């Protein structure tokens, strides 16, 4: 099958490698990440993950969801060489939480949730205050995602990527053997 647009294959490779690595990394680090400025945040992949393998007509997707599940079937798919193509991601900083479903091939975001913003206006309030707070939170959430993507990219195009790749492989083997 030909690409729907120029560079689509590179988008899929980068997006799927990233989400697959992110699942490993978030479990290996116990969900602890930091922005380039040193702000710590927690990031988990949970509840809903889709993995994909094969090409063209032989393409195969497995979607697994479960509230407290370890998503073993999706992980088993990775052990067979599939990659994460869509994942639900949760980010936490103190009592604030963000949630989104990120698609590997184009980084489109569905069901993006920020910490709650109060939209009830009181007299004398700036009419745009809630809008500005919402946008601040949305961009803050995206900032955390960009930070982990940047961390991935630095690793992905460095000499240590081969070592990191092996670590992901060991994590998968360990998990599939314990099943």
């Amino acid at each position, binding site marked *: 099958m030909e690409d729907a647009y120029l*560079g689509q294959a*590179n*988008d899929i*490779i*980068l*997006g*799927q*490698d*990233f989400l*697959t690595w992110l699942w490993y990394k978030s479990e290996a680090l116990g969900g602890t990440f930091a922005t380039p400025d040193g702000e710590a945040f927690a990031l988990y992949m949970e509840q809903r993950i889709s993995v994909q393998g094969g090409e063209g007509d032989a393409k195969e997707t497995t979607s697994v969801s479960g509230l407290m599940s370890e998503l073993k079937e999706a992980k088993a798919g*990775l*052990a*067979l*060489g599939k*990659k994460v193509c869509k994942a639900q991601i949760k980010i936490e900083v103190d009592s604030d939480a963000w949630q989104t479903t990120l*698609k*590997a*091939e*184009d*980084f*489109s*975001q*569905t*069901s*993006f*949730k920020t910490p*709650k913003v109060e*939209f009830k206006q009181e007299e004398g309030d700036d*009419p*745009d205050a*809630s*809008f*500005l707070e*919402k*946008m601040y939170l*949305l*961009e803050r959430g*995206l900032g955390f995602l*960009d930070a982990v*993507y*940047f961390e991935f*990219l*630095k690793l*992905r*195009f460095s000499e240590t*990527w081969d070592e990191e*790749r092996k670590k*992901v*492989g060991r994590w*998968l*083997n360990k998990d599939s053997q314990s099943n």
Partner: protein
Amino acid sequence: MGFLSASTSFTRYRIIGEIPETLWAEIPDRLKKNAFQDIDHTSDERSFGWVCFDEMLDSQWHTAPPEKGEFMAFVLRLDTRRISAAVMKKHYTLALNDELQRVEKEGKKFVSRDRKREIKDQTKLRLMSRSLPIPAVFDVIWNVRSNVVYLASTQAKLLSLFEDQFTLTFDLHLELQTPYYQALQLLGENRQHQLDDVEATLFV
């Protein structure tokens, strides 16, 4: 669902190229020039254009200006008339039966292919004018400091319509922030060859 909802689906863009300094003052006028045109009283199939972020019925920005802090916020409104296939089939059959009766009186036994097409078009137009356009709105938020633009949709057809309308209005080009373009932005142009030659990692 828009950006002010509890949950939003969206796509992120970046404006590429230089933005002329004179553009900022022209934004309200450019939005008005490409504002949404109502089709309630016509039989047009669809209409799209910009409306006020705070009020989808306001295409003149009387309610509030597009500027909100460091953002420009507006809405892409798309109204579409849809006729269900079953309704179309019924009314086309009725019109065709009328036509058959008419030609039979003239001694003919069938309706030509061209005439059938004509009847179909007329039926569609008649039904269009009787059906109300269905409005849909998609929030657009432009961060004027970073020149990142957010669109509250992930549908491919709508994205393409939005990109064209944005370029037509502001004479600016948008780059969808897909993994490749975001990587280019984060790593810098000098790493482009690495991104172009990337091969899938075999983790197992």
